[in-house]
């Protein structure tokens, strides 16, 4: 299987008045054709910035300082960010779904207009056929009475319905990859489950690749084939989902696992342990491992040597930790 998108050593900084925020610091990941991967980590660890960088959607004071984003064999970071080539990729070949259903749709444009504009530019549809296709898309994502509701405005839709519209919009031009940046964080749990099932169904059916960005481990466990765990702007562990869940090898991942309840677990059975401390300030990063102050496994080596690179611990399993945390404890 060939990687549909490969991010290689991506570095994005924000040059603020307080200093340089190293939001994404040498991150690499890839997604195969038809694959679903999960990108997890605490709030502020650089998940969104990494995917927005791939689409060249970073605004000042942010700047992509190095790295490559290979799509279809070409480094799309070389494209002019407002140019023709980049625009044909955005929405056409790689689509995005954002976190905030309430603010991600334009309040003064009808749902129809917002769905059809991508169809018009990427698929050269005329207004009439774009409208028909938009209605089709809306019913596909489960909006009832799509033919009527198509002319509504975003404020007439509930949060969950708007997120369905976002999904329809993302699917509209048959992209090869969809990046969903916390698509369900802002909706209630039932809606969340419905939306995830819907997305999963559709991308599986259409053989679209999907990157799910989330801080909800349950979500990735259920849908993602592989997981990347980010911490303070870097990937600190990656591997197939089962492997990460069964056998986490980075203290941060282990901490994450302990801090979430598992399905089928007896009430009061296992104690949930939150990770102590706070993630580091991305402006003043320590030269050593960034997780060190919060780590319960730390050794002398961790305090003396710079942040460890990812190393192989299983066939497809890699971790950025010096310590060999054994198989299970």
């Amino acid at each position: 299987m060939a990687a549909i998108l490969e991010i290689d050593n991506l570095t994005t900084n924000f040059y603020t008045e307080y200093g340089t925020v190293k939001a994404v610091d040498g991150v690499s990941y890839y997604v195969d054709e038809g694959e679903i991967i999960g990108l997890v980590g605490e709030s502020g660890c650089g998940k969104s910035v990494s995917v927005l960088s791939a689409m060249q959607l970073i605004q000042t004071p942010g700047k992509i300082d190095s790295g490559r984003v290979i799509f279809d064999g070409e480094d799309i970071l070389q494209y002019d960010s407002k140019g023709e080539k980049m625009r044909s990729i955005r929405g056409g070949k790689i689509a995005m779904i954002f976190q905030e259903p309430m603010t991600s749709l334009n309040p003064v444009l009808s749902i129809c207009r917002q769905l059809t504009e991508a169809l018009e530019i990427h698929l050269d549809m005329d207004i009439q056929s774009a409208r028909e296709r938009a209605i089709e898309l809306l019913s596909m994502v489960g909006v009832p009475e799509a033919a009527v509701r198509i002319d509504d405005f975003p404020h007439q839709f509930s949060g969950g319905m708007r997120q369905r519209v976002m999904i329809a919009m993302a699917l509209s031009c048959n992209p090869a990859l969809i990046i969903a940046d916390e698509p369900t964080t802002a909706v209630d749990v039932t809606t969340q489950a419905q939306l995830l099932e819907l997305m999963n169904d559709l991308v599986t059916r259409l053989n679209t690749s999907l990157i799910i960005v989330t801080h909800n481990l349950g979500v990735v466990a259920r849908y993602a084939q592989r997981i990347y765990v980010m911490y303070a702007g870097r990937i600190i562990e990656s591997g197939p989902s089962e492997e990460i869940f069964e056998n986490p090898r980075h203290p941060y991942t282990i901490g994450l696992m302990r801090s979430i309840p598992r399905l089928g677990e007896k009430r009061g059975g296992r104690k949930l342990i939150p990770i102590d401390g706070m993630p580091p300030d991305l402006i003043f990063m320590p030269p050593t491992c960034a997780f060190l102050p919060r780590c319960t496994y730390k050794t002398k080596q961790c305090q003396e040597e710079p942040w460890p690179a990812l190393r192989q611990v299983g066939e497809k399993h890699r971790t950025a930790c010096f310590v060999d945390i054994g198989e299970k404890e």
Partner: protein
Amino acid sequence: MTAYIIRRVIIGFIILLLVTMIVFLFVRLLPGDPLIVYMASYDISAQTIDEETYQYLLAKFGLDRPIPVQYINWLGDIFRGDLGKSIVLQEDITTLMANVMPRTAYLGAISMIIGTGLGVLFGIIVALRRGTRTDTIITFMANIGITVPQFWLGILLMYFFAYKLGWLPTSGWTSPFDDPLMHFKQIIMPVICLSAAGMSGMCRLTRSCMLEVMRQDYVRTAWAKGLGEKMIVFRHQIRNAVIPIVTVLGGTLGGILGGAIIVENVFAIPGMGRLMVSGVFDQDYQIVQAGVLLFGGIVIFSNLVVDITWAWIDPRIRYD
């Protein structure tokens, strides 16, 4: 929506009533007497007049009644379409206004269109080029434009363009039908004066609204869809940015009407503003009252139009 409009119209009437009441009272409380000015126009000095004649004149103009009664009478006349008669000029105010108002309306409309049009345009340009030299210069000028007093700007323009350079006539009014070129030359400076503040305010407001809108999530969505910058600016940003802009249009019009009072006097334009100022100086109650009624009515009406337009632009707003 209809209910909303009816409610707004009723509120508008109440405001207008209050405003005219206050003005009615205050012009009468001011020291001075329109009858003295009236008599002066007949070369009669105030000292030589006998009490009897004075009482006769008071009764003639209905000024002998208590103020509330005068007000009610005046209001009754208004509803009959009669704005009253100027005490000093001895002419029907309806006729006086019909002569001068078109000039003020004309200058006001031009200033309004130029002020808002260019203001919004400059605002969009500087927002798209924020941080560049264009931005710095235009924003700086807009800040000056907001603070500079109109009479001072008028005199300054006059000094340079009329007195120093001699490019434009100092002041005056020529009908466009008599001499279009002269007309054009004469209105340049008044229009600049009238539109400067509105244009500057509009430019600053547009700039900040555009910058605000550019940061919105839906603009990021539009970029993520692969739209080009032009389409994003015109379809996604401007419509959202103009929503707050539309709301200040009523205020801008009010500013221009108020400005007309000063600018018409600086540039000797026989318009409504000039008439009102002479009305104030002569204590010509009727003219002041009618002028306030007219300007107040225009401002209230335009604010209503603005709010309806607002609902039309922003689908989230539905009045009921």
